[in-house]
């Protein structure tokens, strides 16, 4: 009887371990191709860690760039436009690549092409209506910011709503960088707005 109990107990424990391993495997497989992690240190500074654990800090001070915090749990689903003065001047809601191999890769990329009108070659729409208008391409694999439904995940691109994409498209140029990251960036916007408030108060006091 005791032996049977031991066998039952051991089997159930083994099952739990296998289940836990399966869960862990699923989590790993979601992010296994995210070889790079990007951690923002300030509005303009980013720590980049590669797959070997090597880290470096990139400072985009003096450059204009767009930060995308992807639409995944633990991230914001927002993008932030930062100008040459390090001012976050625009924030919008976005959606990014879906789980299962379409996740938008982390990294700092240059905008390599701007196209006002475009239809995806890899995923053309059945309706024949352009599905990548206001395209701002940032990888050779076809990743781009473009007009899209922000409530639907993508094949890896960043979907931006109409008013937002119009503002962004007009502003970016081929020197603009795109930072794709997991995690939060909104804390810097809060800091910036508080700083503005303080600046205005001290300006008024000094007059």
């Amino acid at each position, binding site marked *: 009887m005791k032996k049977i109990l031991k066998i039952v107990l051991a089997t159930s424990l083994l099952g739990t371990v296998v289940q836990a391993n399966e869960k862990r495997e699923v989590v790993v497989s979601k992010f296994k191709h995210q070889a790079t992690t990007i951690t923002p240190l300030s509005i303009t500074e980013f720590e980049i860690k590669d797959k070997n654990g090597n880290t470096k800090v990139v400072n985009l001070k003096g450059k204009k760039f767009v930060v995308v915090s992807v639409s995944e749990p633990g991230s914001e689903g927002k993008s932030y436009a930062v100008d040459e003065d390090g*001012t976050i001047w*625009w*924030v919008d809601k976005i959606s990014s690549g879906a789980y299962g191999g379409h996740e938008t890769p982390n990294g700092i990329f240059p905008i390599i092409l701007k196209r006002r009108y475009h239809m995806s070659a890899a995923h053309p729409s059945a309706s024949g209506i352009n599905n990548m208008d206001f395209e701002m391409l940032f990888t050779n694999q076809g990743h781009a910011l473009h007009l899209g439904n922000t409530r639907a995940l993508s094949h890896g691109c960043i979907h931006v709503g109409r008013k937002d994409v119009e503002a962004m498209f007009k502003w970016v140029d081929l020197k603009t960088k795109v930072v794709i990251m997991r995690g939060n960036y909104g804390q810097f916007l809060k800091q910036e*707005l508080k700083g*503005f408030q303080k600046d205005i108060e001290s300006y008024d006091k000094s007059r």
Partner: protein
Amino acid sequence: MGKISKTLLTNMTLITGLLLTACTSSGPSLENAYIYNGINFGGDRDESFKQGVRDACRTAEGDYTKDHDLFKTNESYRIGWEDGRLQCKGK
């Protein structure tokens, strides 16, 4: 009777005074105020400040506008731009 009239007169004066005070605005003064987009950006603002406000409010509408040189060197312009960014919001 005279005492009652005196008390009544005093009370009436007090009530009238209170009513008049209640009608007075306690918000920021509109004297010399710079109003843009229906927002009061304060009094005695110089032209650089006003330019900063106008640029930031345009930016808030999605048309990015900023004089980077003035933003770095002219305090009034910078504060105006920051105030416009805060109050015109947009985003």
